[in-house]
């Protein structure tokens, strides 16, 4: 069973090697000339006025929550889709209800303005 994954695992290890090798190469080969002005974070030539490490708009959290909701729903579709032909009418009707419930949720979010980005 796990034999299937041998190839992917080897590839994964090699990919780590490639990626780490690249990072290593660039840090070894490049020149190193540090001075205070250069090390400033880029702010179009200005001094950094606000620190980036602060709260950001709640809109993004909302998207994250919606993602969790809808992606979990999407996960339920996968096994159902594979077995769709075997489940026949019963599976279709069940999923119809599922999609309707999902649709109610989408409608709710939509009309409440959760998807609007001002």
């Amino acid at each position, binding site marked *: 069973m796990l034999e299937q994954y041998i190839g*992917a695992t080897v590839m994964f290890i090699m990919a780590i090697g490639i990626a780490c090798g690249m*990072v290593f190469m660039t840090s070894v080969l490049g*020149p190193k*000339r540090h001075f205070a002005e250069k090390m400033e974070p880029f702010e179009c030539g200005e001094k*950094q006025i606000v620190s980036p490490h602060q709260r950001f708009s709640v809109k*993004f959290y909302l998207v994250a929550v919606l993602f969790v909701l*809808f992606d979990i729903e999407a996960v339920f579709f996968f096994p159902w889709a594979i*077995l*769709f032909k075997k489940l026949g009418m019963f599976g279709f009707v069940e999923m119809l209800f599922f999609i309707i419930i999902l*649709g109610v949720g989408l409608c709710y979010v939509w009309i409440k303005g959760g998807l609007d980005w001002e």
Partner: protein
Amino acid sequence: MFVDFLITLVKILFIFGVTVGFFAPVLTWVERKQSAIMQDRIGANRADILGFTAFGLFHIIADALKMFTKEDFIPRGANKALHTLSPIVALIPALITFAVIPFGGVYTLFGKEVNLVISDLDVGLLFIFAVASIATYGYVIAGWSSNNNWSLLGSIRVAAQMISYEVTMGLTIIGILMVYGTMRLTEIGAIQEDFWRWGIFLQPVGFFLFFAASIAENKRIPFDAPEAESELVAGYFTEYSGLKFGMFFMAEFVEMVTIGAIVTLLFFGGWNLPFVTMDGILSMFDFLGETGANIIALLIHVGVFFAKVCFFIFFQMIVRWTLPRFRYDQIMKLGWKILLPLSLANILITGAVILALE
């Protein structure tokens, strides 16, 4: 056992050679050259060796040299470890998604069955989604660890955009799964030996939805708000230089190849030529013996596969140089209000049609 492992190793090296060694560098040139042609400019033609420019192909070498020898820059106040980690996290998923994508069928070479896929997983498609979504972390960490406002804005946009389109992308391929009834990509490819069972005929809407969602997932124009250079300098990789910067680009180009490969495999017959079956090729080249005929079939199939992939890469580039960038609210609106309901409707209609036909 050892031979199997050796074959796997060869396949892996082949894939890395094709994606990292060939496509990623050449695509940087193709992108420039194509934009030049489309915008009626002369384009990349300056790098030369002894006066030869070779259509600017030497720019690839020049770029590579430049990236390797640039200073590895980490700004003050940045989180050094995470700053270094993020390009690695972004690149690795792009490299290993190819592990489950078959670039050819099954061939009998010297009495041994060779399957042209590195890992023939029964959950292949799920593997792609699972691995590809990890890349989001790389981009988010990149922006957050840079101690730069532009980067942070870019990374927040990346996070929101990628997770939004991941939902759609997951739902768009449900139709394909329903039609084929399997998640094993080699099986999906094999089914499409019959030209009229190509995904594009069975799931035309699914194709457009999936293609749009996957371009958005790869953050390319017209969905490149996270790195919009006219708004955010360079978005999440503003503070990256040298090869670390190059790795983000490499990830993007490799993902273009991956998208091309998935689209080919799911919707355009994979390695199959229209109306030409495996048996047809084998019987046509029967005079070369079993192994010989199989080698010919292998070459044809791999060639066909990558020709199709090249076409879809080309297509993505045309899209890029044709359309302007969407506004961020338009991107989110497209994802949640148009693609998501459409893909849900696609699932229902597909189900109804399948049931009606049975």
